[in-house]
């Protein structure tokens, strides 16, 4: 029993879900849902389709190179079952997962920091230019009442 990865969106394909397509050159494509399958049939490139993980990683929107990501890796040489090892692995997995999530979150936060700066600058700009919409320039100041000096015209 394995949770596979969808070829298109890189999401998890649980057993009993999704579709598998085997091409004539024996390459296997698994899809988690018909959306991914249909996109594939339309020959769309997952690296250019914005909502896929492949795009996000390729466009630098998500953490790609990191030590914590090296732990989960499909291995070709099976290791014989050993209770201690399995127990240790499960514990290690949990720890690695937490660290991974922290790091991924940090990466995204860093990326979005620049936006905050821009936001600040924009707010300042907005206030400078358009303050007249909510506050008159001389609001709150005492105005001398001018004696009427106007001449009546008819």
């Amino acid at each position, binding site marked *: 029993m394995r949770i596979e990865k969808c070829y298109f969106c890189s999401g998890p394909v649980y057993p009993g879900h999704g579709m598998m397509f085997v091409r004539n050159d024996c390459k296997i494509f698994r899809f988690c849902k018909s959306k991914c399958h249909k996109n594939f049939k339309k020959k769309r490139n997952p690296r250019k389709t914005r909502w896929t993980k492949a795009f996000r990683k390729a466009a630098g929107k998500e953490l790609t190179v990191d030590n914590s990501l090296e732990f989960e890796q499909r291995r070709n040489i099976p290791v014989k079952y*050993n209770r201690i090892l*399995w127990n240790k692995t499960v514990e290690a997995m949990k720890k690695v997962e937490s660290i991974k999530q922290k790091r991924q979150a940090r990466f995204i936060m860093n990326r979005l920091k620049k936006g905050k700066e821009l936001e600040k600058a924009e707010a300042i700009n907005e206030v400078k230019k358009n*303050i007249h919409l*909510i506050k008159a320039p001389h609001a709150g100041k005492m105005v001398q009442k001018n004696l009427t000096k106007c001449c009546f015209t008819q």
Partner: protein
Amino acid sequence: MALYNFKKIMVVPTAKDFIDLTLSKTQRKTPTVIHKHYQIHRIRHFYMRKVKFTQQNYHDRLTQILTDFPKLDDIHPFYADLMNVLYDKDHYKLALGQINIAKNLIDNVAKDYVRLMKYGDSLYRCKQLKRAALGRMCTILKRQKQSLEYLEQVRQHLSRLPTIDPNTRTLLLCGYPNVGKSSFINKVTRADVEVQPYAFTTKSLFVGHMDYKYLRWQVVDTPGILDHPLEERNTIEMQAITALAHLRAAVLYVMDASEQCGHTLSQQLELFNNIRPLFANKPLIVVANKCDVKMINELSEENQACDRLLAHRVDTKMKGKKVHDVLNRLHLAMPTKRDNKERPPFIPEGAVIHRKAMEIDAPKRKLERDLEIELGDDYTLDLQKYWDLMNAEEKSDKIPEIWEGHNIADYIDPDIMKRLSQLEKEEELREKAGEYDSDEESEDEEMQEIRKLASQIREKRKLKILESKEKDVHGSRLPRTAKKVDRATLEKEMEDLGLDMTDKNESHYAQQAQRSRSLVRKRKREASAPPTSRTRSQSASRPPRDQSGIRDAKMMKKAKTMMKNSQKGMNRQGKKGESDRHVHDLKPKHLLAGKRKSGSTSRR
């Protein structure tokens, strides 16, 4: 040895048929439609294809003929000689040679014309070239008429030749005509050769098969041989001679003891002596036939002939050169002893035990099936118990496979703990370096104030935009100054902007408003001074059109209402005015008529 089966030769068509066949095939199998306006390379290709196709067909057919017909040098000399006797070797070779030449000529013609066609610049020229090419090829073939006819006859005759295997056990019957050879073969085999009282009933070789000592024997019946020298022999006799010369068989020289064939015994003996050289190296039996007339038992001779032939064959095989070749190649190699150590054959223990168990028929180990029967319904196939693990007690563990969307198998690594500790160290360092500290709210109060104001500004703008969108003015509108500004709204707006608007009766805008109101009142009709000149006074005194003929405000209102009422209809129809009589084309036919053909059909 391959059976000489000449029945598989393809039919050789006559020249006329051949030409018709190929031309009609070209007509049918190549594209036929071509127009003048096609591109020149397409036209050229079209005609070239026809020429090449015709050439290909001729070539294939002729090659097939050439390969099907046996080459006299390649077949057994018996058949070569037989064919020479029957069809004349020279004529045969010549015919095939002519066919070969024709084939080459056709190839050359095609090549030349294809080359020429590359320079054809119009449909007409290419077509003429193609006609010329095809015509020449057909003429070449027409000249081969004789050869083809001859070959067809050869083929027909060849296919009817009896299949005599020159290398198997054969008995050859020969002798004068009418001595009883055919009767003998009829008796001995299932062959059905014509037996008649006249000489030369049998005109060619016949084969029959019989069984003796669990082996198949061929019995070959020949036409009779007369006693004259070789050069004077005719075709029929030559066949018999050929058979005698080339078949390694036991020869049964049949003599007519009763002289019913029309030749005396002495004559028959003469013949026998004449053809004696042909019997060299072959076991020979002289058969005295028709002994019912003259009493000599001849059936036993047959057995003797067969036995003798068998022995003869074995002898010749042993004595032949070929055997020595084979013997030279056979060599039994025995390895020489390296030292005196005993090296008996090694039998693994398991094999020995297995053998013993087989002998004793001891009970084998307990099978799964036995277990199944024992446990009945409780039985579960547990393959985990056969696993080869380091600790045996872990065999029955339930192994976890998945955790929170991750495969555990992907994380299994003997040195995972080491890597994990490294990772944790790294993480600690990072934390110490302050990477994970959340950013302080570096926003001071000023910044927060600014943000609040900015959000208020944005809200206000959006509201204003919405307001302006809600106004029902499309197209041209009045300038801002044409509208009257209401005092109350003005004061309210300024209040919202933070100004103090109390007690503003003496302000400029209020005073101005009072003044302008007085001017708006209608002018009363007053008696004015008589005008100086007529025209100017008329224009001055003439009232504007929408006030002329109207007594008071009430009438004006009514007039206005009537006007608006009359305009309602026109407005609803979207007309510009009374004079707008334009008929709109709201359903243009060129857009709405017709079938929904290919293309997007989501709208008209």
